[in-house]
């Protein structure tokens, strides 16, 4: 037996975790709400996990609203981070960022905002391997306190983490293993192609880590291109990826991932992403703040933002 050594910051005691889950109303009830009300439930200091990946199925409207509501001291985790990370950092929302990769995208190069925040010590930055972050969510989703793995050993990565990682030798095989602590976000933000009012969510194309993130989190805020009838869900329950009982808020947000892509609904709006990149290429962090004033704080609502960037909302 390995002795009890130390608690990782993101691994709460099992009973407390269960209590948080038990306190939620997980029944089959209407959870539709507005974007602002859904995001208002996020508390300063919460750990917010973001679904999708790079610029694919990003819950962009939800992140946009977090920045508008000026949430503070968040821990944010996302497997691969794009523009939304810039806005969260520059919006002064984040104390700690956990990711495996951070850039608007290969074609736009390094994030000037991220560099400014990390190189000047303005944010606690944890870099994990892509699989490690996925396995930490998965351990949490499965209700186990860690996932054994064969990565991140021999690298400098564990030394650059706040979390102290444990290792062990497998009692069955003798294999050396690194133990990834379960990662329990307080809130998961997920954007999907369709969901019903109860929160049963179905998505197409690349699944990313969304199902694990949803089950790992204390609460899930779901934005969806379209709210469909529960009957449609029940006709194809083998396509449901996130069950209603994990979801706390359902918000219909057409183009809710724009300017990122949403498979089957719209491609990435590359030109719109170029526009943002121009702001930071010219003026770094100040350019990002200019962009954010015009595109996040000044628009009346999400549809006004869409109009501003030249995307037509359906609603």
């Amino acid at each position, binding site marked *: 037996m390995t002795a009890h050594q130390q608690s990782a910051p993101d691994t709460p005691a099992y009973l407390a975790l269960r209590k948080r889950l038990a306190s939620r109303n997980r029944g089959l009830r209407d959870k539709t709400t507005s974007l602002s009300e859904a995001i208002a439930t996020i508390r300063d200091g919460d750990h917010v996990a973001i679904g999708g*990946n*790079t*610029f*694919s199925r990003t819950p962009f409207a939800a992140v946009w609203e977090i920045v508008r509501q000026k949430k503070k001291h968040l821990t944010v985790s996302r*497997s*691969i981070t794009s523009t939304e990370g810039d806005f969260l950092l520059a919006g002064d929302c984040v104390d700690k960022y956990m*990711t*495996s*990769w*951070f*850039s608007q*995208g*290969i*074609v736009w190069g*390094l*994030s000037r905002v*991220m*560099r400014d925040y*990390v*190189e000047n*010590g303005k944010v606690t*930055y944890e*870099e*994990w*391997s*892509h*699989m*490690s972050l*996925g*396995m930490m*969510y*998965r351990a949490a989703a499965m209700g186990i306190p860690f996932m054994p*793995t*064969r*990565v*991140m*050993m*021999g*690298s*400098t*990565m564990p*030394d*650059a983490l706040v979390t102290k990682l444990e*290792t062990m030798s497998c009692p069955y095989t003798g*294999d*050396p*293993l*690194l133990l990834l602590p379960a990662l329990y976000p307080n809130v998961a933000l997920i954007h999907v192609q369709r969901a019903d009012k109860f929160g049963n969510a179905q998505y197409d*194309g*690349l*699944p*990313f*880590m969304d*199902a*694990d993130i949803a089950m790992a989190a204390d609460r899930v805020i779901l934005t969806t291109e379209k709210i469909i009838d529960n009957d449609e869900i029940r006709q194809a329950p083998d396509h449901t990826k996130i069950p209603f009982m994990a979801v706390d808020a359902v918000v219909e947000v057409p183009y809710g991932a724009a300017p990122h*892509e949403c*498979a089957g609904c719209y*491609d*990435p709006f590359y030109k719109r992403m170029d526009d943002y990149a121009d702001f930071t290429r010219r003026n770094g962090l100040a350019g990002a703040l200019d962009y954010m004033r015009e595109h996040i704080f000044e628009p009346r609502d999400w549809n006004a933002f869409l109009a501003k960037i030249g995307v037509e909302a359906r609603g």
Partner: protein
Amino acid sequence: MGKHQATDAYTTSELLSVMCSRVMRDGLIIFAGVGVPLLGATLAQRLNAPSLTILFEGGIIGPFIQPGRLPPSTNEMRTAEKANMLLSPTDVLALLQRGYVDIGFIGGAQIDQYGNVNSSYLGDHRQPSTRLPGSGGGNDIASLAETIVIMPHEKKRFVETVDFITSPGYVAGGQSRAKCGLIAGGVLKVITNLCVFDCHPQTRRLSVSALHPGVKIDAVLDNMGFRPDIPDNIVVSEPPSLEELSILRGIDPTRMYLK
């Protein structure tokens, strides 16, 4: 990149892509990023490895890359076009852990004498001069598969000891990789625009195994921050054939990656 090999006959990225393609035998499963490895893989598929399979970290198994429609990233739907299967990144990377991948390809900002790659921090990570994009799946690939590193041959990139090990090669050399817990995988080759390295079977230091056509060993050494092993039996790479170049140029007619 160094301009030493940009002859009239082929560009640097064409050379790199051809060198990549030659390690890809039929039936292999490779884990690649977009760019040179993908070009090499697609070339190999067209030439002599029709059942070669490509995996991308976005969660993609066996996409069908059409000439002229190369994908711009490993994590979006364009990359998934006509794939055989879509998985979560967690699960596609777990295939590396399960042993499904024959060769993984990675790049980075720095590489050192033991093949360790840095794509995280330049300078001390506690107060870095440059924070880079990071590992992505790089650490996972390097930890779990036989790995080929593709790297522009530049002095600032080939350093004796990397500032930060993102993707471990042979760590401190000798048996140290296994002692750190990495019992499988390791650096198979480092392919640059000047030469090919492998790692010495005992010391695990980079060792020149082939010089690209027209490249002198001095050019290799002049563009590195440390001295690699220079064995007696260095060969000269077979130059890209007209057939290879012709197919390659057909795959990327707009020269998206073939700079």
